[in-house]
């Protein structure tokens, strides 16, 4: 029965809103938080530092020196936390010596063994947003609140990018192929493409040093290639050959030239982050925008985005919420809404296929 309140999914498309985002180090990379509550931060500021997981090497120093484990302490030449290079002396007993086989850092000394952490995998976490720190999570990160425009997509390749939002050249990014001269404005920019991602586009974006790519869709076969790319890629509509929805394109055009932050999160179960582009939008400090209402059931007159059918990505307004489920053309029987699109066309669509844009 659709007379029950139905709380739909959210995917925001907001010209100007209050943005509150948690920025956390990965679970396996605990570290230290570099900011305090109330501190102003800009999007490139480091708010936490951690260490990515790295392999360890156990060096049985006591055995090498032919002493009991408890006797090693007096023979050590290094301590916990010391950085070492290959060949550096770790412990010594007469002519017997223990040296570091690889570069790394002493992670522990335990029961006659030296544990060497190989390599250096420091990890800096940036704010990704101009705003104020409103909460700090010890060892993990912080929550930052700011204001700006939000365009949320559906998929990202796990990279982040920061730069000015720029529309691609009228003949596409591919026009840069073969030594085409890169518009200086595009270097380091987050470039918006109207077309599905192509392998060549991805390669050029990497070669030309783009800060990121916003594309409507990408072929499923390019998923692995895109994940491997160093350029942050945000997919707005999905896999396949979909073009950019009108509302998303209007948002991007209206923000051409503004500073943006691309968080191209790869979706995963229980991943609370959403791949998104946040844009710095000027606003009147005396008239700060509110936060979107996230606790709202579908109602007649609400703006929604359609997710499937003949017009995916279209924005419309709910004009009717029938009380009984409807048998659709494909035979499924579903609770549905009637949505009037901006073109005036009316579409009956399952409630499950509607998203709230936050507006």
């Amino acid at each position, binding site marked *: 029965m659709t007379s029950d*309140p139905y709380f739909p999914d959210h995917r925001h498309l907001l010209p100007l809103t209050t943005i509150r985002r948690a920025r956390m180090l990965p679970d396996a990379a605990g570290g230290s938080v570099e900011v305090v509550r109330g501190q102003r931060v800009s999007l490139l500021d480091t708010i936490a530092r951690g260490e990515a997981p790295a392999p360890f090497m156990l060096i049985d120093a006591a055995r090498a020196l032919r002493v009991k484990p408890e006797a090693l302490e007096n023979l050590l030449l290094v301590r916990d936390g010391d950085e070492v290079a290959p060949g550096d002396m770790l412990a010594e007993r007469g002519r017997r010596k223990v040296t570091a086989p690889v570069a790394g850092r002493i992670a522990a000394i335990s029961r006659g063994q030296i544990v060497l952490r190989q390599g250096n995998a420091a990890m800096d976490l940036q704010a990704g947003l101009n705003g104020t720190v409103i909460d700090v999570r010890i060892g993990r990160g912080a929550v930052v609140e700011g204001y700006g425009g939000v365009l949320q997509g559906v998929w990202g390749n796990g990279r982040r990018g920061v730069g000015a939002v720029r529309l691609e050249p009228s003949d596409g990014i591919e026009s840069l192929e073969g030594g085409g001269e890169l518009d200086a404005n595009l270097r380091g920019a987050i470039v918006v493409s109207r077309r599905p991602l192509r392998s060549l586009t991805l390669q050029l974006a990497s070669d030309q040093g783009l800060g990121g790519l916003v594309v409507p869709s990408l072929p*499923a076969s390019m998923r692995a290639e895109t994940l491997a790319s160093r350029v942050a890629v945000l997919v707005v509509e999905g*896999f396949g050959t979909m073009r950019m929805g009108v509302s998303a394109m209007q948002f991007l055009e209206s923000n051409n030239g503004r500073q943006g932050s691309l968080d191209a999160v790869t979706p995963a179960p229980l*991943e609370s982050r959403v791949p998104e582009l946040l844009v710095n939008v000027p606003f009147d400090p005396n008239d700060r925008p509110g936060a*979107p209402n996230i606790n709202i059931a579908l109602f007649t007159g609400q703006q929604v985005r359609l997710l499937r059918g003949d017009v995916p990505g279209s924005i419309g307004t709910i004009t009717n919420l029938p009380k009984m489920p409807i048998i659709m053309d*494909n*035979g*499924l*029987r579903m609770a549905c809404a009637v949505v009037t699109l901006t073109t005036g066309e009316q579409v009956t669509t399952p409630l*499950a296929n509607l998203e709230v844009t936050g507006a």
Partner: protein
Amino acid sequence: MTDNSILAVDFGNVQTRALLIDLVEGVFRVVARADVLTTARFPIDDVSVGLRRVVGKLSALTGRQLLTNDGRIISPETDNRTGVDCFLATASIGRPLRTVLIGLYPEMSLASLQRAAAGTYITVIDTLNIADQRTPSERLNAIALANPDLIVIAGGTEDGADDAVLDLARLTRLAIRLTKRALPPTVLYAGNSALRKQIGALFQNSAALLFADNVRPSVRRESIEDARVQLARAFDAFTEQRGAGFEQVSFQARLGVLPTAQSYDSIVRYLGETTRRKRGGVLAIDLGSAVSTLSASVDGAVSTSIRTDIGLGHSAGTTLDAVGVEALRVWLPFTADDDEIMSYAYNKALRPAVVPMTRRALFLEHALLRAALRALLHAARPLWTPGEVVDNLRVPMPAFERVIGAGAGLTGTGRPGMTAMLMLDALQPIGVSRLQIDSNALIPALGALARINPTAVVQVLDAGGVEDLGTAISLSGTPRAGAVVVSVTVKQENGDNSIITVEGGALHLIPLSIGVRATVTVRVRGAGLNIGGRRRVRLEVTGGTAGLIIDARGRPLPLDAALAARATQIVTWYAQSTGDAVIELPDAWLSSDKFDPAAPVVPVRRDVAAPVPFIDDDGDADLDALFAGDAPVLAEIDSAPAQGRGKAKPTRAVSEPVREKPARGRGKQKETAPAEPAPETPAKEDDLDDLRSLFS
């Protein structure tokens, strides 16, 4: 305290479902059910919001106040019938626990740990044992780089080995110290109990520590029940730790947050005990969004397998990766290139709650669903026949008296016949099976409830808490398309009789309303055909939402290898299962060219393959007349199996590779199957005793 009213909520990755169970005239009944989208992700990131929403819905439905003004569940129930006596929570949400299993020997303690872990959402990242040939550094990295949420250590019989176990425990502690997790992992020790004190001292201040009884107290004995309980505790602790509002849910729930899959294991164990007398097993499959669970009771042995890479929503992409595009393509009535199939699956993973709107999308969705169910089945079947390799899905299934499906993709079609067809297509049960669906997360609720009130579980199950689709009678062998292969006499309690004949290749649904009882006699015609090994079956059935289902398509299901013929098969089965008109597919769908999504798909005629029902006055006489001049029908009801008495075994080599094109034609059928008895009315007193003993 007596629990007279129970609120049970199951948190899935997409749906949060709630049930209110209450005493009605002295018997426990489900009195209301509701569901909402789970609120674990953006923008809410808090499952307790979904909890309040769904319980609020139940309040609105029942007129009973269940929440305080600040959104907490009122418990216990008050004199004016507000609140509930007991709140239970189960969850299958989120990522599974990354787990490292450590034992002394792979075939001993490690094997026992693997079995104990069935029913908990874990992903085993690595296993360590003293015989695994790895260097100490490699073992250290195996633990440290796995970044585990849970480390389970076992080993040593009681009063057996200790040094080797302690060495592995010390290595584990070192790995924990070296990793910089924000939250330390949980360590569960289920080894030699003489070492508990030393283990406790080792992990003090470095990990959350749980103890369970030794999973291998002696070489010949296994004891995994306590380990399963402790694994459920670890799961509860993990759900609390990861936030998203679970700490609030766990705090309010009587038993914390229990893994949904353990409920499947418990309830299938119980149902298996009650149906064992009828010589049929029980199969329950929950095809979730991110995680899927299959529990089966076969010959009294229960096995539960969880696949964290198979699901119809969040895991749609990994499901495709696991099964391959060909496993989907075989269920499609059109040509589809890899990109189209991959795009559908990957998009489904991005928006798991979305349902297909077009005919083409529906076929893709259901192809993915069938392939996922087949993959679950394929992975689980070796567990049913220890000592015998069964890695070919074309080997006939064991007889399942009851088959239960769950998961929104399966239960949410809104068309019971379509759901039944999907279950039959993918699972291909043989003989007579009662098809049911659990669309309201009753099984998760009852599995949790069984721990505190087994009586309520039995009463709710007896009251038909799980939706009956109907009894499916499946023909084994290779029936000839278009020839009458089955005749069915249906005598209803109200005196209405009918005789129906069904042609080979057809899926026929006979209307029989929920709760209506009937005596059904089925006769098989045609060489090499049988119903669970019999040529003639008489049984008492109760109607369901899909009615009485006669699956005369054969086993293994003879999907045609030629696309055009297969397309006709598939669209006809959809029409037969729903009563909708048979649709005509655009020519372009069958060409190798890229399809035009705008091409119309139009229905052209109704049920061309449907058999003609005969209204009967005197029963079998007319039925026999239909077969006049044919081979004599066996006179004895429930006679010997067609090819040998007793428990039949497949005669085909059980490990032969799957062929792309099924064998067709008369005389090729070789399999026989276990005998299929008529369903009996369950002995309820015994059921209760069984359940009490199971959960005592």
